[in-house]
């Protein structure tokens, strides 16, 4: 059912391509981008209460880009100029409509982008694919180093290490 509504909310999505990567579940895009598989994240301590999680100490009384940057700073993210792929970094892109954040997408280690569509499924998509009447436009990025990331060894080094292993195995066999 959800995919029938893509044309209404994301007029660019089918043209630019997407791939469904999960089933619907209770959570939201901010929690997904934050790597929290249990809680739903959104600012707001309204009367009546929404029941959403928001990091302690981060302003909750508005939905500006700055507030979301502060929330992701609690996870080690810092603002960065763009969404190009930088090996060793993970990035989050924020979509803003009329001054308020509406959505976030998370860059994967291979440079592709994924996000959770509200309470619906997660999809892989281009950043432009979700721009439109539902989420507005991409307006800001944050990034942080990927924990434990080891850059691939240069090609020559890899061959050299492989050679060392082969030699060691041959010696054992002798």
């Amino acid at each position, binding site marked *: 059912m959800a995919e029938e509504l893509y044309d209404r909310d994301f007029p660019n999505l089918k043209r630019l391509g997407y791939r469904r990567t999960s089933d619907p579940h209770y959570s939201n895009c901010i929690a997904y981008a934050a790597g929290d598989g249990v809680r739903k994240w959104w600012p707001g301590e309204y009367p*009546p209460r929404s029941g959403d999680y928001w990091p302690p100490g981060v302003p909750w009384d508005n939905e500006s880009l700055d507030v979301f940057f502060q929330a992701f700073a609690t996870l080690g993210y810092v603002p960065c100029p763009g969404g190009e792929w930088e090996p060793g970094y993970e990035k989050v892109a924020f979509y803003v409509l009329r001054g308020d954040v509406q959505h976030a997408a998370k860059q994967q280690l291979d440079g592709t982008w994924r996000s959770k569509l509200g309470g619906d499924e997660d999809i892989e998509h281009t950043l432009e694919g979700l721009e439109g009447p539902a989420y507005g436009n991409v307006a800001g990025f944050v990034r942080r180093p990927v924990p434990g990331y080891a850059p691939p060894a240069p090609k020559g080094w890899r061959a050299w290490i492989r050679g060392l292993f082969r030699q060691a195995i041959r010696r054992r066999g002798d």
Partner: protein
Amino acid sequence: MSPVDTLGPEPLADRPDHSPTLDETFIRLRDRWQSETRHFSSTTRRVLHPAYQAIIGLGPAAVPLLLRELEQNVDSWFWALHAITREDPAPDDARGDGDRIARAWLEWGKKRGYKW
């Protein structure tokens, strides 16, 4: 047996004297709200939708219907429940955890004698 009996009940819309029941009204509003906000992550934007506000406007009679919804499919019904009842049974450390908050509301409903 009349021909009408063999065809089953008349569609609701064909009955001139039919006024929708609370349950029918709730389901219509719920379906509209879920369809029109399902891709929104902003809880603010979702709960300010006119259909959601109309559900709050149904008042205390909607509480069992909201608890039934929570039991079947956790969604952002906590705002409506709090708006109607002025209660908040969820523990603070459950914030954001829909399953735990839903369980707290269902327990609250049972203790208050609601049936759904």
